[in-house]
């Protein structure tokens, strides 16, 4: 690949837009009183060819799923089909959220269709599409739980949300945002929720238990029926974190396991692209008993076969200013429509097969199993973050590192169904190559990436967060 170099042979950074050309404008002719108008504005002023070059160059310094393996555990970095982008670009879908229902029947039909798809896939009564991300789904789900307890007059009492130690950080944060106290549950020795400890933790103050299944070690919580019974008997609700749903499509449904509320990470399970961090969407499914608490509005079919927005009877209100991330939802609908039953089932089959095959091919300790779509290997006496830098030099993206903490120097690895056997072999070879590097070699890695090792500590100690904070070209 091509890289511009200076005459001395050193690679050149792409300059900031602000270092190329800026313009300072004032508003002299606008028909507004001076005191309502800003004095001046300075922004970059590139011509279109320069804009194109700039961002093309930036793209070249960005690894993506189309470059190769991207096995970030719990992130489900799978291939994002192109046709879903075409569907999202359809002009007919580019409408304003305040249209009257009768003028938005197409959009409502898609939303309703997706509500039904998700409900079916999760074994839920219905699903709201409003939360714009997985964490927003958690927040929404807990608001629903809280509304439910409130409607039972138990809100003051049920102030605790129980979260296993191996859960995603968002679970803790979402519970806190809803004003709940978080009770952390350590894993038992086989990596799962300890039923005994759970029984002790649960009680009248329990609002909900949040669970990921398979959990972040890739393990199915085999005692899920018992767990559900314990929580339900105590009057709590069971929340399913959908981050790992890709392991179970068509094999098991949260609703059937006893979960009352779940979120779906459509950008994981249903292949809408991650976009460098978002947008995603975090619809939540609920059992029948909770449907009245769903966000406003929800979509239903009317007697004449048309669709309408309505406000559920005891709605928690809104969690997004409008209707969530429409374009992402549309892509999700397209993806599920394309795969159908067989394709969805095959997705989890191949995701699980890939993870097991990859694990077989690498030479690191994997303390917990049997795992499904992901596993957590240990880098042993090597710092997992260093190990990851060593993998970068093999041309692949490393796994999630140092988490969950139950595994020392964890390498949380999720190949997804989208990698071919050939790519899995490449990825396995990268693990091997990294584990054969010395500490010194790892400390110097990466050397083949767009940038050499980056000092993240200094960045945080002296934060420079805009080009106004950046002096010259070589500060």
């Amino acid at each position, binding site marked *: 690949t091509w890289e511009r170099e200076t005459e001395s042979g050193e690679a050149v950074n792409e300059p900031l837009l*602000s270092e190329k050309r800026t313009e300072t404008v004032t508003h002299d002719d606008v028909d507004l009183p001076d005191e309502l108008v800003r004095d001046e504005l300075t922004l970059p002023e590139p011509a279109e060819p320069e804009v194109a070059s700039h961002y093309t160059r930036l*793209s070249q310094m960005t690894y993506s799923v189309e470059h190769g393996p991207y096995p970030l555990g719990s992130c489900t970095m799978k291939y994002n089909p192109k046709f879903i982008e075409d569907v999202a670009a359809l002009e007919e879908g580019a409408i304003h959220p305040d249209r009257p229902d009768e003028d938005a029947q197409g959009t409502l039909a898609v939303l309703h269709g997706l509500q039904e798809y998700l409900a079916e896939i999760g074994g839920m009564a219905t699903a709201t599409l409003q939360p714009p991300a997985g964490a927003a789904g958690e927040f929404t789900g807990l608001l629903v739980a809280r509304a439910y307890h409130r409607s039972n007059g138990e809100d003051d009492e049920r102030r605790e949300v129980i979260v296993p130690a191996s859960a995603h950080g968002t679970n803790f944060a979402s519970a806190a945002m809803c004003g709940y106290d978080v009770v952390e549950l350590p894993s038992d020795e086989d990596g799962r929720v300890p039923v005994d400890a759970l029984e002790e933790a649960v009680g009248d103050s329990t609002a909900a238990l949040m669970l990921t299944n398979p959990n972040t070690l890739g393990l199915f919580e085999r005692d899920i029926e018992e767990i559900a019974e314990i929580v339900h008997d105590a009057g709590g609700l069971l929340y399913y974190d959908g981050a790992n749903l890709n392991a179970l499509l068509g094999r098991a449904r949260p609703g059937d396991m006893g979960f009352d509320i779940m979120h779906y990470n459509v950008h994981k399970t249903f292949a809408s692209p991650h976009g460098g961090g978002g947008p995603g969407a975090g619809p939540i499914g609920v059992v029948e008993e909770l449907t009245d608490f769903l966000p406003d509005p929800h979509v239903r079919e009317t007697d004449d076969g048309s669709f309408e927005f309505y406000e559920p009877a005891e709605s928690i209100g809104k969690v997004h200013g409008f209707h969530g991330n*429409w374009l992402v939802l549309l892509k999700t609908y397209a993806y599920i429509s394309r795969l159908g039953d067989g394709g969805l089932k095959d997705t989890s089959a191949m995701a699980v097969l890939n993870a097991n095959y990859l694990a077989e091919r690498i030479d690191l300790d994997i303390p917990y199993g049997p795992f499904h779509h992901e596993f957590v290997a240990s880098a042993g006496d090597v710092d997992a973050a260093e190990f990851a830098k060593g993998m970068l030099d093999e041309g692949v993206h490393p796994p999630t590192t140092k988490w969950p903490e139950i595994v020392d120097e964890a390498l949380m690895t999720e190949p997804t169904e989208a990698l071919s*056997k050939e790519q899995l072999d490449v990825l396995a070879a990268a693990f091997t190559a990294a584990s054969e590097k010395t500490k010194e070699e790892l400390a110097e890695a990466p050397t083949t990436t767009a940038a050499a090792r980056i000092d993240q500590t200094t960045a945080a100690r002296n934060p420079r967060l805009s080009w106004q904070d950046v002096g010259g070209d070589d500060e």
Partner: protein
Amino acid sequence: MTTMQRIQHDGTGGSHEADESSPFAPQTPQEVESMLSAIGADSVEELFDVPEAVAFDGEFDIEAKSEFEVVTEIEDLLGRNADRTEFLGRGHYDHYVPSVVDYLSLRSEFLTSYTQYQPETSQGFLQALFEFQSMIVELTGLDVANCSMYDAATALGEAAALAARVRDTSGSRVLVPETIRSERRSVLENYADGAELTVETYPLVDGNTDFDALSDRIGEDVVMVYAESPTARGTIEERLSDVATLADEHEAAFCLGSDPVALALLEEPAAVGADIVIGDASVLGLSASHGMGLGLFAVKEGYLRQVPGRLVGTSETADGRRAYTLTLQTREQHIRKERATSNICTNQAWVALRTAIHVASLGATGLSSLAEECVTRAAETAARLDEIDGVSAPADDRHHFREFVARTERPAAEVASELADRGFLVHEVGEYEIQVCVTETNSGEVDDLVAAVEEVLA
């Protein structure tokens, strides 16, 4: 599991047996066999450790389709959206997005990458986000911008939570203008709930803050005062500095709601004393998209360590070059769990990229012109409607940005409905009030709208 029937290809649009496999899983039957044998398993089923009692052996009854069939089906479905010219705004706007934004942002490197946890191989996206933050800093005059929230409403919720966190003494109230969209307020209330805050409104007069009323309602228990400019009615607020001063006197944070186009022209938030700016930045970067947004979130330096969401900063590589990296991650949920500044993880990074490309495409000059046109078009369209018997526009005696309210002699519901029949959508915002929003994408149809309003009011 019928692994031997896995069929990879049905891009033909045909209807052959694709329904046993995913077209996006590349394993051939032979490869599946060899992988199973490497694992030492007889079947893929064997790999699932799911107790029978909770295993699913039903069907979803979702029929697999070819790509062509899906695209056609969705085209048909969306075709049910009525063909209307929208003069709708109120927080979601349709500015023309130059093609270059699509072509660059859809490059797979941007579209299909993840959060930049390995900065060495994510420099491009990190730089783009750093530039986005910088643009917001330029536009707001504040010191710190994060690289996205979900939308304006959730950004406002986060602002209230932040305001409560940064305050020395505890407080319980947030004041918002009565003109705020009820949806935005509802989101705020959900965020406020967990932070044990209540949301109250203050009145406006003629689209401008009723400063005396606000002065009455403020108190030491107010953690944040929120104002919007332009307001949801399209008016440009004229007393922002006074509001900021008042808030400051009560140790309340002053949060301003706006958007990047308006910010290019109107008073600089930092100059009027804003502590926080929120808004929807996707007014540049996304066209009408059923309300999908990009939460703009900027604060003054003192709030830095309490900022929710992702921040990109500069650093250095081992060989001394400038580099970009996510920074101050100890604020975030994946490190700090329940003590994080927010639960946000997946954000709107790709929309922020699009917004940044859009801003770059316009440049200072183009963005400035676009903003000026928002004033001109609203004024001109209001003036034309005002000439119609039975219409008085604008209803608020203020300057406007993009949109304005018009008073109609006939009930607004009837007016809106009859305009819809003629192909035009406007907001109904009061019993005798409609709201009209004009941008470059519908300005070519203002003549027709005016004619239709004349007919309807005749």
